[in-house]
């Protein structure tokens, strides 16, 4: 039976520490700001240019062009380019929790605060849930918040109604509201897994960052025209991520054995 008071205490403790850690705070604040500014700047530049979009329309992969439906070539090109930025919004829910989790778990190990913590009545499930949520919630909030700002600013960039409709449509919403949180959960559990093998939070962070590779793979695959990010592909990614999350949660819990942590994590 999970005691949610203890989980809440863990989350509050993690956040209290997080807001005092400049490295973590920098990542949580800077990344959303940067990743929101980039597509806004790009759309503003494209909106003020009348020739670029049309001239490059022939560069759109045929598979993606089908996604555009009744859009004109210029709008389709904008959607194609902006769609690459969707992946930035999927990097955020991976990088932010990895940074937080790397410091919260390996950091706790490095400062020897894990032993007195494990000596309290907190169960392993409560501990992992508290630490996990403390890392996932800021990442999801930052991603959704950044996306909301992007949507609010979007009309000011000169993006057409078709482009705005596409960005506020099911592909982006499903990706940000479903795939993002699922990726955050995977990232936290992967960070716990990596933490069991490292002693330095920075090493844990860097090794855990390997989880960005699948996102980058999707990005380059879309540029190469191998895959198209649309509702079916987002749903398939969600199913895969749910399976990965279950596997990683089980692996994380299995590796987070109190005895192993106290006697072998050096």
């Amino acid at each position, binding site marked *: 039976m999970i005691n949610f008071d203890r989980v809440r205490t863990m989350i509050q403790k993690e956040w209290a520490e997080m807001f005092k850690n400049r490295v973590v705070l920098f990542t949580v604040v800077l990344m959303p700001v940067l990743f929101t500014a980039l597509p806004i700047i790009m759309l503003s530049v494209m909106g003020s240019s009348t020739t670029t979009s049309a001239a490059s329309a022939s560069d759109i992969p045929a598979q993606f062009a089908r996604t555009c439906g009744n859009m004109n070539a210029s709008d389709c090109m904008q959607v194609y380019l902006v769609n690459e930025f969707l992946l930035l919004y999927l990097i955020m829910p991976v990088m932010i929790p990895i940074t937080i989790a790397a410091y919260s778990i390996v950091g706790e190990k490095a400062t020897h605060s894990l032993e*007195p913590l494990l*000596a309290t009545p907190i169960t392993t499930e409560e501990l992992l849930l508290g630490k996990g949520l403390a890392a996932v919630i800021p990442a999801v909030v930052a991603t959704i918040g950044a996306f909301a700002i992007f949507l609010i600013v979007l009309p000011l960039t000169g993006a057409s109604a078709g482009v705005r409709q596409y960005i506020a449509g099911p592909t982006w919403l499903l990706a940000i509201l479903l795939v993002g949180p699922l990726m955050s959960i995977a990232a936290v559990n992967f960070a716990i897994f990596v933490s069991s093998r490292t002693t330095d939070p920075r090493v844990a962070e860097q090794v855990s960052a390997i989880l960005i590779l699948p996102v980058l793979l999707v990005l380059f695959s879309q540029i190469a025209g191998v895959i198209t990010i649309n509702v079916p592909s987002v749903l398939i990614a969600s199913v895969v991520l749910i399976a990965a999350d279950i596997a990683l949660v089980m692996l994380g819990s299995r590796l987070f054995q109190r005895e192993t942590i106290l006697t072998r994590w050096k």
Partner: protein
Amino acid sequence: MIHTERLTKTFNVNKKLAPFTAVDGLTIDVQEGEVFGFLGPNGAGKTTTMRMLTSLIGITTGKAVVNGFEVGKDDQKIRQTVGILTETPGMYDRLSAEMNLSIYARLYGVQNPSAVVEKYLRMLNLWDRREDEVGEFSKGMRQKLAIARALLHEPRVLFLDEPTSGLDPEASHLVRDFISELKTEGRTIFLCTHNLDEADRLCDRIAIFKTHLITVDTPEALRKLLFGRRVAFHLKNVRDQFAVLVRSMPFVKDARIIDDTLVVGLDHPEDENPQIIRSLVEAGAEVQFVGELRHSLEDVYLQLIQEQRS
């Protein structure tokens, strides 16, 4: 309060190597309200024993019951009802002293945590520094805070691992005084320490341990067991004939002159001293003063560890 029966812990360090035994067949009984010293050299298995008794790690074989709860079966209840001071305080350096204690008070489910936190911060003279980050605290202040953390949920059994390790004499004195206070409150204290003087002052009984239990008794009984009781007679005019005279008395085990002092081995000096003094005075000795020679606990410890090695 704490009972162990053939408690054993082995670790499988490497698949190729045989398991390493850290604790081998430990059987002890610690009574309620007792301060029980657990002494041993580095790597003897003291911390492993403490971790087993606080349900931080499992038992390989044997049995341990703490505060009425069995290790391995009632781990959650054990963690809820015992307090532990780990060898390294492990505080959250970026958080304030008050926040550090408040987190633990809530994890232990303490009713009215802010009042309890205030009580202990005031008790340990840290109330004025409650909003300061613990990272700015001295080692002694951190140790005091860690002791307060172990007490927030008012445990009847306390496990203290090296409570004065690395502290300056003043801070050590302060921590020792605080432990003495806890003793008067009737709490059971299991004290792992390298500081033999501290163990001598604080403990009702001590166990000397190196993977397995070497001996357990009161510090006085251990002194007596190893060295017997010796009384020093300071005479103004010490002469060999006085030693011969004393040695001839039937209850005297040994009598020698060491540094102008007549040192006599006795079983019951309370009864035998007056007879010796009378005989010495009758023989012309001028007795200035008489006192019992006490071996330090360090002598006892070193003797036992050496015997163990040989």
